[in-house]
């Protein structure tokens, strides 16, 4: 049954306090959620545009690795990738983002199939090692 809350009595006071607590918390949650959502949307749009740009660029074999790295949110991974060689990054992104085969990459970079695959797997191993074990350093 509906009872009017006149703010008198312990029960009503507690209900009012709880309501204001919930209202404030809900508004904070909403704010945080919206901030996160807009931040994520910003990244998603810029990455999409970036991929379009890369798509166009790849026809000229001009692959801008560092612009892809700049999209990475994880600071640790960003730091690791920044330290890698340009050619290794090219191989990594060609394989992971563009889904090129090792034959296609090897013809683009002018290396043998084996050399490209070796570089790729070494790179993956290195990233894994530094990413998982890097926190202790």
């Amino acid at each position, binding site marked *: 049954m509906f009872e009017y809350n006149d703010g008198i009595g312990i029960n009503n006071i507690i209900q009012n306090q709880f*309501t204001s607590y*919930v*209202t404030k918390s*809900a*508004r904070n*949650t909403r704010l945080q959620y919206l901030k996160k959502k807009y931040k994520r949307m910003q990244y998603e749009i810029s990455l999409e545009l970036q991929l379009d740009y890369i798509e166009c660029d790849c026809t000229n074999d001009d692959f801008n690795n560092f612009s892809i790295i700049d999209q990475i949110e994880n600071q640790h991974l960003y730091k690791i990738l920044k330290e890698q060689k340009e050619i290794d990054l090219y191989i990594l992104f060609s394989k992971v983002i563009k889904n090129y085969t090792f034959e296609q990459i090897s013809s683009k970079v002018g290396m043998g199939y084996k050399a490209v695959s070796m570089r790729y797997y070494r790179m993956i191993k290195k990233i894994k090692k530094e990413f998982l074990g890097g926190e202790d350093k």
Partner: protein
Amino acid sequence: MNFYDILNNAKQDNQDAIYNILNMYKPLLMKESIVDGVWDEDLFQDLILTLINCIKKFEI
């Protein structure tokens, strides 16, 4: 049963009491989960979690 008792029961993980409070505050959560005129289900879920957190943290 008054609000004090319901809240007290909810704090002791009584499912019915929690459900009761959720129903009481549902209009508020619905209102807060509307973004640009569109109801956001993810936000609504977040707000339900917030309300459950509030029940646990609120000191009587």
